[in-house]
């Protein structure tokens, strides 16, 4: 259950440490992600989930190493990093007026030359990506006028066209309604399953993580990250680990109307 150290993992994090203002925020964190996996990062507020994601992306100076398909991320230039990692931050701001299509086209930036503009084929792919996330009718709409949820979908479309080996998404569902939340996670599942890539997304809702992600990475404190595999680990084992983070709760397996099995977390009252 704890960081399964495969001989040749697709994405591997070793002894990752980051401190700020003499405070150790991440202390020798290690974990692996296999090829084709969509991992969910869970943990309490302020525990360092976003910092972990930013550190993995090379945005923060750190000790330790991250390797993707055998290549060290620390040695990559911005351009190479962009060709290998897609990142959706928690908050996104664009200070000028642009269309949703222009925002998606930004995903091709790292593959274009200094004076090169996106090709007709790339524009077509950007439009297809917008269609995939249900924004086909918004291609020409100004990005600022989209709702928060639509913006998240637009950024997911940008991630689709980036076509990278590692997807890192920080709460990509935070502004989405029920249907779009499942759409975005299904899309991410399709994007990773059986593919030459892995995804790591930070989620606040452990139920969604249980539903769509495997493995789950539970960040308990600066130096403890527990890896769970919902398809292999027992409910009892996982429940214990969830309790250490979220307090009293029960993890139950139940079936939906179509007979599909789901894992559900139920809060328990302490009294």
């Amino acid at each position, binding site marked *: 259950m704890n960081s399964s150290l495969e001989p040749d993992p697709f994405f591997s994090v070793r002894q990752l440490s980051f401190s700020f203002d003499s405070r150790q925020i991440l202390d020798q964190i290690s974990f692996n992600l296999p090829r084709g996996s969509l991992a969910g990062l869970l943990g309490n507020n302020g525990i360092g989930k976003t910092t972990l994601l*930013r550190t993995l992306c090379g945005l*923060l100076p750190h000790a330790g190493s991250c390797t993707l398909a055998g290549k060290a991320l620390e040695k990559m230039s911005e351009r190479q990093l962009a*060709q290998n990692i897609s*990142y959706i931050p928690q908050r*996104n701001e664009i200070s000028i*007026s*642009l269309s949703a299509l222009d925002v998606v086209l930004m995903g091709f*930036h790292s593959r274009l030359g200094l004076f090169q503009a996106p090709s007709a084929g790339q524009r077509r792919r950007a439009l297809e990506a917008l269609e995939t996330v249900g924004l086909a009718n918004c291609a020409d709409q*100004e990005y600022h006028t989209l709702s928060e949820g639509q913006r998240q979908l637009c950024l997911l479309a940008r991630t689709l066209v980036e076509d990278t080996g590692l997807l890192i998404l920080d709460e990509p569902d935070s502004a989405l309604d029920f249907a779009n939340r499942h759409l975005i996670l299904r899309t991410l599942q399709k994007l990773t399953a059986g593919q030459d890539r892995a995804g790591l997304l930070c989620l606040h809702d452990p139920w969604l993580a249980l539903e769509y992600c495997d493995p789950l990475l539970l960040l308990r404190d600066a130096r403890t990250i527990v890896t769970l595999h919902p398809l292999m680990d027992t409910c009892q084992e996982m429940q214990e680990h969830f309790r250490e983070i979220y307090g009293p709760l029960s993890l139950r397996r139940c079936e939906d109307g179509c007979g599909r099995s789901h894992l559900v977390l139920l809060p328990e009252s302490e009294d």
Partner: protein
Amino acid sequence: MSKKKSSLILAAAAALLLLIFLLSLLVGRYPLTLGGLLAAEPDSMERRVFLNLRLPRTIIAALGGFGLGIAGYVYQTVFRNPLAAPDIIGVSSGASVGAAMGILFLSASPLAVTVSAFCGALSAVLLALGLAFAASGLARTYQRSDTASLVLAGIAVHALAQTLLMLLKITADPEKELAAIEYWIMGSLSGANLRQLPVFLGVCISCSAAIFLIHRHILMLAVDEEEARLLGVPVNRMRLAVLLLATLIVASTVSVTGLVSFIGLLAPHIARLLLQRHWLATLALSGLLGAILLCMADILARSAASGELPVSIFTSLLGVPFLLYLMLKKEKN
């Protein structure tokens, strides 16, 4: 807004600029006519006024205004702040100190003042960039905000330049040098001549062309810094390169015209209100509007009174009402 409408607005602005450019060639204390110019002898007064004074002055007004317009829009994009203007990293105040030093310590010839103002502007910006670089290197960076460091460094350099300028003014002879410094600060194209043209044209055209060529990269700087880095933008190097290009345009222009930097704030805002969404078209329109504003202001500066008036009076008088009209119209809609 459709691309067709954007193109129409751009074409209209270009046509208006052409009209004003022609008008600017003819209007002044020595009025010229097209017929007179064509019929004049090669060595006649008309030809000499046209070739040595009026044509360089109009070219400097048009190209300088264009440069200030696009530089303003670039600053606003790079700093991710619609209120950013060339002085945000000390260009204009540096140029003022340079010009004052030229007037006080060099020959006070227009060329010496121009070169000195150019050097002052560049020195101020390099100092601001150096300070920002040192500050961001020292505070290594959990919540990165190199733009904030740059703005703070710009404010510091601006304050320092203003202090220097005050000291220079105190030492200046009130009758001649102080008046010359004040006049330079108010901006005027009356000193524009043929000798200034080659360097001005070279810097302004090459930097403006470079900005248009790398416009897609400048656009990426409007995205949050960390996001931009993970889209493959070498943010710090690109920002530095773009700021230097925009600064060279502003420095080459204000060193010839004096301070007319308000155009750098005004033209991009008007362009944005007219076009809204297409960055490249808005960049071009900012330039065209800047050129129109400066040409019109220069025409008025040399024809509204019996003597030359400062050009900045008219850039504000012409631009502000139009900006207010567009803002009110937008509110109404």
